């Protein structure tokens, strides 16, 4: 089976061709395949998050804290190919800096489905995994997740060219305290953009009615909701199943112990029992590796759980731009209406002006002239605004939809690979099971 799979031609198939690859290897395989076809940046630069370390230091409120930093290494691709292999550029960053970077990207490229970071806190844990952020397994998986994040950003046509992102990777501008420079820049940029983003964000959270939403975005948002719901459910079920399976395997370890004790009181049966017991112990121990591999599969699902969120964010941003456009158009419309009323003296609809003019009499021609002039100016402004917003909206829709299409293809590809990885992992698990029980059977035969 493996042989025939490996024979097939295309790059995509190469991933599932070798069933002996571990899922993480396969995943790297996938990523490299995908990213090779990617952007300029990745063609020129190798990026990795190589290590993680614990640090202690004073935080913003001058208190001691322990945190983890991750080493970002970059290396020009040409150098690697020429095998001169210079020492890679490297710098240490902590998780919160990655968060800053991502927020910056979210605000700066609202039409992009921005790749997600690995989870802030361990969720969907089953009992063996620690929910502790300091746990080495968690740190390791986070390291992989952060690397994945950087590679995704670096392979995105728009995001990869961002200057701040480049600095984040390499801290190009001179030496200073580790990371502070760029962090400051991000923070400051963040502050600047967040002030205007603040109002936007407030608007995002508020409920507003969009009169003509683009149906495609509404559908996408709905899809994002469904995706998030179904992946959450899947992760939950999977965590519970992992917990139970762990129990099944571990209890077999008790067989090992009892067989061993029993073999001590038997003469002829002793040897067979004893060796069978060893196999039971091996069986019980094998679950640790199996479930660790399965975590990778869970991580792949989690990435898309968070991607669903990013997708929904883009859809909401579209609604916002649409809303702003509609608001501007509406304002313009009412201003034009006012102008007409003033010009013709007719009051078409019930208005305060109409009422006050009835009550208090009409204004003087000078007043009217002044008002008309003001309205004219406002209408001109309004028309400009509407034009601007139209363009903005149009560009947003175009950009967003293109990125959504790109995202869809990536998602289909990645998730399909995840399913295949899961199957490969199951196959490996079954093979191990067959081996152990065949061995045990042989021992029992010698009882």
């Amino acid at each position, binding site marked *: 089976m493996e042989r025939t799979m490996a024979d*097939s031609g295309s790059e995509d198939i190469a991933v599932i061709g070798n069933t002996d690859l571990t899922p993480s290897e396969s995943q790297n395989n996938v990523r490299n395949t995908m990213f090779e076809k990617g952007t300029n940046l990745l063609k020129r630069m190798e990026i990795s998050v190589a290590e993680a370390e614990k640090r202690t230091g004073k935080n913003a409120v001058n208190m001691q804290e322990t945190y983890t930093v991750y080493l970002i290494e970059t290396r020009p691709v040409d150098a690697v190919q020429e095998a001169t292999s210079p020492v890679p550029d490297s710098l240490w960053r902590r998780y919160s800096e990655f968060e800053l970077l991502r927020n910056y990207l979210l605000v700066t490229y609202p039409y992009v489905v921005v790749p997600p970071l690995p989870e802030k806190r361990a969720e969907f844990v089953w009992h063996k995994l620690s929910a502790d952020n300091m746990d080495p397994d968690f740190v390791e998986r986070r390291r992989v997740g952060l690397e994945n994040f950087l590679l995704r950003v670096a392979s995105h046509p728009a995001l990869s060219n961002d200057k701040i992102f480049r600095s984040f990777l390499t801290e190009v501008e001179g030496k200073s305290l580790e990371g502070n420079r760029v962090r400051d820049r991000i923070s400051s940029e963040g502050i600047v953009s967040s002030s205007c983003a603040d109002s936007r964000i407030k608007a995002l959270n508020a409920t507003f009615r969009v009169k003509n939403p683009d149906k495609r975005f509404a559908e996408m948002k709905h899809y994002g909701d*469904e995706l998030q719901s179904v992946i959450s459910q899947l992760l939950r079920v999977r965590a519970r199943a992992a917990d139970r399976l762990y129990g099944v395997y571990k209890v077999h370890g008790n067989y090992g112990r009892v067989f061993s004790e029993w073999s001590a009181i038997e003469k002829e049966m002793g040897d067979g029992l004893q060796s069978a017991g060893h196999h039971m112990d091996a069986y019980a121990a094998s679950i640790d590796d199996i479930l660790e591999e399965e975590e990778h599969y869970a991580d792949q699902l989690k990435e898309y759980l968070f991607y669903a969120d990013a997708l929904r964010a883009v859809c909401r941003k579209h609604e916002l731009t649409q809303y702003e456009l509609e608001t501007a158009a509406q304002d313009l419309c009412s201003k034009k209406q006012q102008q007409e009323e003033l010009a013709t003296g007719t009051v078409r609809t019930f208005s305060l002006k109409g009422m006050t003019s009835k009550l208090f009499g009409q204004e003087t021609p000078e007043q009217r002239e002044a008002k008309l002039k003001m309205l004219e100016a406002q209408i001109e402004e309004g028309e400009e605004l509407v034009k601007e917003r139209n363009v903005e909206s149009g560009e947003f829709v175009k950009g967003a939809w293109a990125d959504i299409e790109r995202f869809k293809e990536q998602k*289909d590809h990645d*998730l*399909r690979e995840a399913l295949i990885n899961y*199957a490969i992992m199951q196959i490996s698990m079954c093979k191990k099971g*067959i081996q152990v029980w065949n061995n045990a*059977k042989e021992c*029992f035969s010698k009882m």
Partner: protein
Amino acid sequence: MKLLGAMMQIKRPRFYSDSNNSVPSEKSPPVSIPADISGEMLDLDEDDDLEVFSKGTSLTDGNSLNPSTQTSPASMINQYKFQEEEEDADAKDLFVTVDNPESHVTAIETYITYRVVTKTTRSEFDSSEFEVRRRYQDFLWLRGRLEEAHPTLIIHPLPEKFVMKGMVERFNEDFIENRRRALHRFLNRIAEHPIFSSGDDFKIFLTAAPGELISHKKQGAGFLSRMGETVRAVAASVRGVRNRPDEFTEMLEYSEAFSQKISALHKVTQRISKEQREYLEELKECGPTLALWSSCEEALAEPLRCMADSLDRCCQETEEQLKHINDELIPDLHEYVLCTDTLKAVLRRRDNIQADLEAKAEALASKKTERESIRDELEKLEDRQEWANNALRSDWTRWKKIMRTDLQSAFIDTADNNVKYYEKCLAIWESFLHSQRAEAEGNKNVDYS
């Protein structure tokens, strides 16, 4: 005793008329029993003993409870000896099955009967096939009789009367099937045992019409069975033994240790079953979740549906694997947990016989009068002791062999079952991969730039 002797002389070994001509009567009795005792017991020559005590004849009259009127040690030993050789020749001539449970409702109670089918070529059976219906009480009766008749032989256990934990209804399907299986095992073990299978009670159990059985039961009730359970328990309690031979102490220690180990194995297996059940319940939710997901997707719909399907099939295989553990391994282990009770009881009874003997010997030493009668009784008790020890010794070896075979095959079956389970799951996942590969080849290469 004289009557018994006469009976013995009448019953000739008709069984040996066919194939097996070589009656191993040439062999001398392996254990040296003082010749005068055996002569006193049965008033027969040794040669007659050997011929008469063949497999076909039923000597052990279950009605009589006085062990001293039973078979002499010498003949018992001979019977055992050539029974082992018989087994090699594979002369299984009685096949019994227990099946077809049926519910019976009367005004007073509801109970289940099982069909017991016997096929045999044994000459003491009037016909070659019998079919009767028996209820659990009847099995209990049979076992009780065998226990009374052979206190130091190891009788296979019956399934328990009722299960305390986790059983709601007596007539639950699984419970009935488990019981049926255990009853089948029980009868087969009895049938395979050289001494048990040659008794009247066994024969009547297999062949008698309901009315016959009832009257036989009433008739044969010995004084022990009229006692209540508690009295029996008191009777069975150990009376202090002074000089238990090492070999029996070893047996006792082994019983203790074995009891612990087999109980532990039983518990571990029950725990595995529980965890596996819970795992299965979780796994069952994966398929539907994936199916739900696939309904939201376009390109991904097919692989997701495929995976959902694969997971559902894996659930079915897991269900079957679990069934084997519950329906076969656990009951098999449970039977041997019950066996350990029998072992301990048998050793206790042997100890009691020895205790009686020791008490009698003391009495002889201390009393001045009636020494003659005491000495007579003492000799009978010594005889009884000898016989009991030998019987136990042989049956112990026999039991250990059977235990080893039974448990070995139980574990081999389980290992086999697990291998099959993983092989089936492997096939399911390989077929999934294969389908995805075929799918991928059908698609164009996607450009990600």
